[in-house]
């Protein structure tokens, strides 16, 4: 359990520097791409050399670090960061037949480049790690932060996740059958009845510690599961709620990671069955698109709602939570095998 304080999100919607999520930006060519800011805090010389993932990651991190004591660690998650540079470098290897190559793409292709760039820019010598386990990369960021704050109760940590759409990862995922063949817009995503989703990307960052004062939200619990059987997932989720939802409380909102992929519907239906009629349901993948660390944007949205922002109508699937939103469950499924369970509440 820990508290979330400052937070930021660069996403395909108007989330940075101010949030205007009631206006929905639609996918173009089956891609929801981030609206990039001007990055005033990044030195121009460095900015020019940064790939998009590093740019949006560092760009989202620096503003929330400003004016705070140096964090005791930087804990980030990503599945795709660096892939664009890696493939560029691989292509050079083949095209120049292993000739004299420049190392820029190779060095930038290391997925820990975002955490390390934030470390270099802020001269931070603390704990520094990048979790990369696909659709659970951000879940391990939360788990790691939870352990860090238990180990060091006065610690302050910058945590977050970044994934970008690159030419190549889009191509590989598309070939793998994870994007829709047909064009869909807005909430049509959920009613298409076909396989696949739309591609997405975002960077979301949070300052977290063990101190309730002034917090935006409380991360009550985080858990994950690898399994292909919805029945096993259901039992696991039920137990997760029993173990962690405070006695006498109910889940006011289920933030569902539903992404319009017909193959995953069984899991999201199972989650709705567990939370039941008492719980309102909202969805966000029509805003973020699908990518492995999408739950980071989901958590950012939860922070806004717990701080009093209204949930826009385009997100609501079922009912609207009454006034006094207290507990939110995020359930997400990545590719039918990786399950994420996050319980977040008012501080």
């Amino acid at each position, binding site marked *: 359990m820990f508290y979330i304080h400052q937070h930021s999100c660069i996403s395909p919607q108007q989330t940075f520097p101010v949030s205007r999520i009631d206006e929905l930006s639609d996918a173009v060519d089956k891609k929801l791409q981030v609206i990039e800011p001007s990055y005033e805090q990044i030195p121009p010389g460095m900015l020019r050399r940064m790939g998009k993932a590093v740019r949006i990651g560092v760009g989202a991190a620096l503003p929330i670090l400003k004016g705070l004591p140096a964090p005791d660690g930087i804990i980030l998650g990503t599945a795709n960061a660096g892939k664009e540079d890696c493939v560029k470098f*691989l292509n050079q290897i083949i095209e120049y037949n292993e000739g004299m190559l420049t190392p820029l793409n190779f060095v930038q292709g290391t997925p820990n480049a975002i955490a390390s760039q934030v470390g270099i820019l802020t001269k931070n010598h603390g704990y520094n790690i990048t979790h990369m386990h696909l659709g659970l990369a951000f879940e391990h960021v939360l788990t790691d932060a939870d352990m860090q704050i238990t180990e060091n109760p006065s610690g302050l940590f910058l945590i977050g996740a970044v994934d970008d759409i690159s030419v190549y990862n889009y191509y590989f995922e598309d070939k793998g059958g994870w994007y829709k063949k047909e064009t869909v817009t807005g909430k049509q995503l959920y009613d298409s009845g076909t396989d696949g989703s739309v591609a997405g990307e975002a960077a979301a960052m949070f300052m977290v510690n063990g101190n309730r004062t002034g917090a935006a939200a409380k991360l009550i619990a985080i858990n994950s599961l690898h399994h292909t059987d919805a029945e096993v997932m259901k039992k696991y989720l039920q137990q997760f709620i029993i173990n962690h939802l405070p006695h006498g409380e109910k889940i006011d909102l289920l933030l569902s990671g539903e992404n319009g992929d017909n193959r995953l519907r069984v899991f999201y239906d199972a989650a709705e069955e567990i939370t039941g009629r008492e719980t309102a349901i909202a969805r966000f993948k029509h805003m973020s698109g699908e990518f492995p660390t999408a739950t980071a944007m989901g958590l950012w949205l939860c922070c806004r709602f717990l701080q009093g922002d209204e949930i826009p109508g385009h997100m609501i699937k079922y009912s609207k939570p009454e006034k006094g939103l207290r507990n939110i469950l995020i359930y997400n499924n990545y590719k039918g095998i990786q399950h994420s369970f996050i319980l977040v509440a008012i501080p």
Partner: protein
Amino acid sequence: MNRIVVTGIGVISAMGDSVAENRASLILGKCGISLLDMFPSKFSGSLPVAEVKKNNTALQEKLNAFEPGVTRTSLLALHAFEEAVANSGLSNNQLSDFNTALVSGNTVGGMCLTDEMYEDAKKETTGSEYIASYDYASVNMYLQQRYRLNGNINTINTACSSSANAIMYGARLIKSGRAQRAIVGGADSLAKFTINGFNALHILSPEICTPFDINRKGLNLGEGAAFLVLEKESDCPGKKIYATLSGYANTNDAYHASSLSDEGIGPFKAMQQALQSANLSASDIDFINAHGTGTENNDLVEGTAMLQLFKTVPPFASTKANTGHTLGAAGAIEAVYSILNLHHQELYPGINFKEPIPATGLVPVKTYQQKGLEHIMSNSFGFGGNCSTLIFSKP
């Protein structure tokens, strides 16, 4: 006592296909480095590398691993994983228990398939069987599916310190009650990707590498994998215990994307904080398995940091002179070697060294020694300034 103990180890490297073969090679001071031979490349027959002398078909047959899309990195990982699991005596039920975690690191993943990936990125039709294998997480996803693992599973990337951090993370999952046992380690295979990358950075040695030597010319790349089974001491009465994982730390040098600061702030802090976490003082350390890549930058900086932390630098050596730099696997392979040091109470001859770096004057252990050893430190530093230190102790 809730100490984290090591109950199983497995390793495959240019030094051999098992823990026993690796130890025998270490005792003899064998160097696993020879000219690139296992795959066609412009560097074939000219670049010194440390290869596992088994091709993919041989590994697949030995491991009965014919799943579509399986990569060399995954095969090496599977080889070491199976040895560690058997060594610890874990049953299939224990493997698929919700309380068994798997944490590993790598830096190449499926990108060992340089040519296949190039083809897949060009083709307009459907992708190859490898389409889902290029990801770093593909190694753990493969192990997860093969053994139906149900617990916490994580893939970590901090470049060349990835598997040291995987070991730390696994230990912390156990300490926090999120796992009862953790299978932790790392794997990497030699690839055109890393060979050309390190070549472009001009840190590959054209000769066999000579860590901590005045005339060192860079590193040699290697390949391999290693896994450790970590458990709580109280959970394994009567079980063979190789060592305790008594301390660890992860810090950042925060200086440059691909080189260490002159003062070695990151390496110094990693070693210092690992001592604090183990509740030990510098004089308690009996041996350091150094990062010691053989590059101009690393060996000078690591030596500088060691001199700053230790009044008298303890005996040390770099086994990268034997195994090459196995990148994401290095932290785990060197953890296994440190555990062997402790378990057999012996130090292995550091090889390829002639003359010390004048600025440090540090001379690695050069001969095989039987010696009382209580605490061993193992360093791993990576691109992005990611520095990690582990301390293993005699149980």
